[in-house]
Structure formats: structure tokens, C-alpha cells
């Protein structure tokens, strides 16, 4: 009895190790628990109610979800997000990596080019959206310029054509985001040991194969970081669409985040908005959970 007590006094329990660090992180833990987890649970709970302008606990089962999946606008939003998401993931990674590889060739004025490519990233999505709204406007933008050069029948008005409007949004997003991906990739490339390149050259492997089969796999941590950053940007895309097309023409460029906002605040139907945001959370979870399981589960 006495010995256990003395040993406990000698070796403080694990709970009190690094006490100051733990105390310092308490506010963040509370924020995460209350704001993120608490807010999420609250939202999911109220998505089963018929809350309108103000939240109230009157349960209606799955009604909000049934209505959601019967709404054409929600289906269009999901489709748009899929097209936008997949294409912007592929293009920003490919273009970003190619630009980074080109800059990596020890070219002259590398700083200048890097600055030029990264500059759009300094603009907010709202500004980007407005700029590209003008550029793609058939009466003032690219189409008008080409026509004034003599090609009268030239037509390029993605923002006013329901079937291709989402690609108009994609162009603006790529213009804004690719420079950032390029910078991350460039940092990754610079992190590759020079000796690897020398060894590859001694073995006579062409540069493009070295990039694809040696350098790229070695850049895995950078790739994962980039992927997470791009993916987070895709799911929450909202401001770009609002500034560029405000969902139009009609509902052709609507995205889920905009549906949530419009139904929560404009239509004064919180229940419907919560149901939509729960579906967004669910779709992210479906992608993240298996990946996290593979990524972190394996190490144990």
C-alpha cells in the first residue's frame, strides 16, 4: 500500500506530463469540440426538423431529405460539383506540376515567372469571378475582341450557355489556383536530392521518365498536402460562382454550398439547408474515411 503510493508520487501519471502544453491547448480543444463537433451534431439533429426561419425541434423524419433529392436544383448542383471537382483536381495538378517542372529547368528569370504564375492566387475568388465575368461576356470580352478582329461568326460565351457554363467557372478557378499548386510542387521538386538526378543520368534514364517514375513517387507528402488543399477548396466553392454567374443562366451553374446558403437564409427554410449541408458532410466523409483508414490504419 505504502509502496504503491510512493511510486505514484515518484512517477507522476501520464495525464500530468507536459502539463503546460496541455493547458495551452485546452482552448483549441474546446473550440474544436464545441464549434466543430457540436455545431455539426446540432446541424445534423435539426436537419430532421421542419425548422423555418428559426430553429425549432419538431421532428419530421426524413422529409427534408426526400424533398432535397427530388429537387432538380440540388441534382444539378451535385452534377456540377462532380464535373468541377474532378476536372479541377486533374487540371490543377497536371498543369501545376508541368509548370513546376518547366521552372525547375534552371531557367533564367525564374523569380519573375514564379511571381507571374502565383499572382492570381493573391486575388480573392470574388475578384477572380468578376474579372472572368467580364472576360467571358460576349458583348465586351474575348468574343467581342475576336469579332472586332474580323472573325464575325466567332462564338465564345460559356457563361450564357447552360450546357457549358460550369467550364467557364472552371477556367476562372484554374487561372486562380494553378499558380499555388505550382509553388507547392516546385517546393517538392527542390526537396529532391540532387544525387538522385545524377544517379538517374548515369543510368541513362530520360528526364521525363525520371520525373514520372522516380521524382513523383518521392514527392508523395507534397502531393497529399496539395490534394487536401485542392479538395477542400472544391467542396466549399461558393464565392466564385456567386461573383461570376450567381448560379445562372437559370440554375445551370449552381453548387451545393450555394443551395445551402440560399435555402437557409433566402428561403428561410433552415431544415432544408441543414439537410443539404449534412449531405455535403456525408459525401466528404465517404471520400475521407476510407482514405484516412488506409493512410493511418496501415502504420499501426
Amino acid at each position, binding site marked *: 500500500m505504502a509502496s504503491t503510493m510512493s511510486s505514484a508520487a515518484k512517477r507522476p501519471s501520464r495525464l500530468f506530463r507536459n502539463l503546460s502544453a496541455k493547458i495551452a491547448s485546452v482552448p483549441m480543444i474546446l473550440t474544436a469540440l464545441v464549434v466543430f463537433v457540436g455545431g455539426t451534431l446540432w446541424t445534423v439533429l435539426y436537419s430532421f426538423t421542419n425548422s*423555418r*426561419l*428559426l430553429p425549432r425541434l419538431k421532428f419530421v423524419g426524413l422529409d427534408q431529405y426526400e424533398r432535397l433529392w427530388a*429537387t*432538380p*436544383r440540388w441534382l444539378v448542383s451535385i452534377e456540377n460539383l462532380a464535373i468541377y471537382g474532378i476536372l479541377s483536381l486533374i487540371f490543377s495538378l497536371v498543369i501545376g506540376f508541368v509548370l513546376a517542372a518547366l521552372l525547375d529547368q534552371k531557367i533564367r528569370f525564374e523569380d519573375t515567372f514564379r511571381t507571374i504564375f502565383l499572382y492570381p492566387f493573391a486575388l480573392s475568388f470574388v475578384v477572380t469571378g468578376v474579372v472572368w465575368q467580364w472576360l467571358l*461576356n*460576349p*458583348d465586351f470580352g474575348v468574343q467581342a475582341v475576336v469579332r472586332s478582329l474580323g472573325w464575325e461568326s466567332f462564338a465564345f460565351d460559356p457563361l*450564357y450557355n*447552360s450546357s457549358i457554363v460550369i467550364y467557364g467557372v472552371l477556367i476562372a478557378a484554374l487561372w486562380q489556383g494553378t499558380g499555388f499548386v505550382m509553388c507547392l510542387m516546385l517546393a517538392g521538386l527542390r526537396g529532391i536530392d540532387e544525387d538522385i538526378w545524377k544517379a538517374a543520368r548515369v543510368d541513362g534514364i530520360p528526364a521525363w521518365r525520371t520525373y514520372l517514375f522516380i521524382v513523383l513517387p518521392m514527392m508523395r507528402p507534397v502531393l497529399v498536402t496539395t490534394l487536401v488543399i485542392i479538395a477542400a477548396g472544391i467542396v466549399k466553392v461558393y464565392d466564385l460562382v456567386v461573383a461570376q454567374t*450567381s*448560379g*445562372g*443562366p*437559370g*440554375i*445551370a451553374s449552381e453548387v451545393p454550398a450555394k443551395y445551402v*446558403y*440560399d*435555402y437557409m*437564409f*433566402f*428561403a*428561410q*427554410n433552415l431544415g*432544408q439547408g441543414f439537410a443539404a449541408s449534412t449531405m455535403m458532410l456525408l459525401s466528404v466523409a465517404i471520400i475521407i474515411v476510407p482514405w484516412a483508414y488506409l493512410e493511418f490504419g496501415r502504420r499501426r
Partner: protein
Amino acid sequence: MRRTLKAAVLAAGTALGFTGAAYATDLEVTHWWTSGGEAAAVAELAKAFDATGNKWVDGAIAGSGGTARPIMISRITGGDPMGATQFNHGRQAEELVQAGLMRDLTDIATKGKWTEVVRPKGLLDSCTIDGKIYCVPVNIHSWQWLWLSNEAFAKAGVAVPKTWDEYVAAAPALEKAGIVPLAVGGQPWQASGAFDVLLLAVGGTDAFLKVYKDKDGEFAGGAEIAKVFKAADDARKMSKGTNVQDWNQATNMVITGKAGGQIMGDWAQGEFQVAGKVAGKDYTCLPGLGMSNALATGGDAFYFPLLKDAEKAKAQEVLAETLLDPKTQVAFNLKKGSLPVRGDVDLNSANDCMKKGLDILAKGTVIPWTDQLLSQDTQKQKEDLFSEFFAKPDLTVEDAQKRFADIISSAD
């Protein structure tokens, strides 16, 4: 040395200015009146309120009601209420009132005998919830107007139409002359509102009320409403090539003769006025699209959030009285292009279009508008449908009508 003196005098002056202003109460008023004509009109309200010794702090939110209302509502529900705020009276603020966040104005209303002066009567009813009055109507706006550019029709070589059918018939000639026949801006509420106007004009008052008041989904899917969708299909074809977003940009197309006409509420008239156009000479207005002689009495009203600050609450009372003052009513509504809410004011300076509207009001053929009849939720679903319908030519009339009937069946 001289400069210091000047600075000292300036500083003293400023200090004096501040002490003078300390007696006045600042009251922040939020609204979404930001186009040229609207801004001129709201300046009249501010002037009248400042004249009472208080201070109007302008909280204009750009981007029309759709953008502004969520901001206003979240400020009120989030515990940072403004002094007063614009809404369209009807059901937009219904739940805020029910949650006890808005101020009951019944006492001020009884003192000012609002029930006697406000006309038509239905207007004050829209402000009344459970027998108490919660808002001050400031103007009557009606959606049911077709604005036509005389210049555009002259250029196309056809007479300015007198009904919707004549207008549709004139559309090919306009197109030939390189003019967009009908301007419909890209914001969703414009397409939805244009459809409602067509429903009233082509379907008639009974059909309108049966759909929006009784919410008869079966009727909305029936043959009578199919005629309205046919007219909407015409409108959709005529609106091709508009390529603008905001309503005032679309109105501007009519003002400059780039478009033949626009279905828009009478607030468009303020834009014509700012541009120096004369009703009857430069532009023509057709109430009810020349087919129906009923006007809806929607409009704007001011709501007052419940405030703890006693001085601000007092200033709210002053503002409520100022808004209904006959002089303010005339000055404001002439600039705004809307009709005053009092029957006892002198409107000799009203132009042709306003007189047409006043005549209809005097005859009493007024109906409630969708803002009063439908919840915001239903309105939004309707907007989604019609903005898609106007933008997507391959959405068939039949499919659209079926979806419309579904929305009406589940409407509240």
C-alpha cells in the same frame, strides 16, 4: 503659427459640431434601394428624418432584396439589430415577429389613425399579425407593368403595341431590327415575377388567386394554366440575348432602345425618370400588360426591431411618423415611381403612368401579391424553376408546368 490657429479653429468647430449632434439620436436604417431612382427616393426619407433633429444613418445593402434580406435577418436574429429595416410587407418578416424580435407599433398607429389614412386597406392588414401592427407601409408597388421603348418600335417600323398579344406579334420585326424584344435580367426573381404577371394577365384574377391563394395544385397543372405557360414560352423566346443580370441594367436596355420592352414593377419608372425620359413620348407603360386591369398591392414597408436603448426607441417612433407624413409620402413616391399609401395626398405632379396606376387603385380592383400569399420557401422554389425555364430552351413547357403544379401542391 497661422496654420496652428486655423487648425485650432477647425478643431473647435468640429467639437461644437459634435456637441450639437449629441442631442440627436443616430438611427441606422437598412434597405436595398441602390439603383439611381431608388437612391434619389431614399434620400428624401433621410432628409425628412434628419429634419426632425435625428440622424438617418444609411445602411444600404447592394444586390437587391435577395442579397439584402439574409443580411438583415441574421443581424436581427444574431442580436445586432438596426434601428429600422425595409422589407416587402407580407410574409418575409412573419417569423421574426412571431419570435418577438420586432416592435409592436399598434400604439403609434392608433395615435396616427393609420387605419383611416392608409389606403387600400389590405396594405395595413399585411402589416398586422394577431391584431397588432408591426410595420409602416411606405409605398405601393405593383409588378404588373410592361415598359415599352417607343424608339425601338419606331426603328422596327411597327406600332407600339397595346396588349401582350400585339407585343408578341411584333417580336419578329424587333428581332429583325437587331433589338432584343423582351429584356429579362438574369436574377432569379425577375423571371419568377414576370411569370406571375403573365399568370394574372393571361389567366385572369380568378386563376391567379386559385393558384397562389388556394394553392390548388390540380388547377395549376390544368389546361387554363397551360395557356399561361404558352405565353411564358413566348416570353422566353423573346428574351433571348438579354445577357444582363440586374433589373436596372435590363431597364436600361429599354431606355436606350436596345430592347423593345420589359416586364417589371413600377420601380422601373424611377430609372426612366433619372434618365430624363418622358412617359407617353419616349416610353409607354401598360398596366396589367394591357390585358388585366387589376393591380397587386405589394410594396415596401419599414419594420422596427425591438431595441433596449430607450432613446433609439423614441427615434423609432419619430421615424415611423415621418414615413407616413403626407409631405414625405409625396416627395418619396414621386422619385421612386411608386404610389403613395395615403389617399389624401396631392399628386398633381404625377406623370402619365402613375396616373394610370392611381386610377386603378381608385377603382379598387386590387389583389394581394405573391409576397403576401406565399412563404419565402415557396417563392424560392418558384424562382429556381422559372430562372431555369427562361435560361434553358430545352426545358419543355409540359415539364415546367408539371413541376410548377408540384410546387403549388406543397406550397404554404
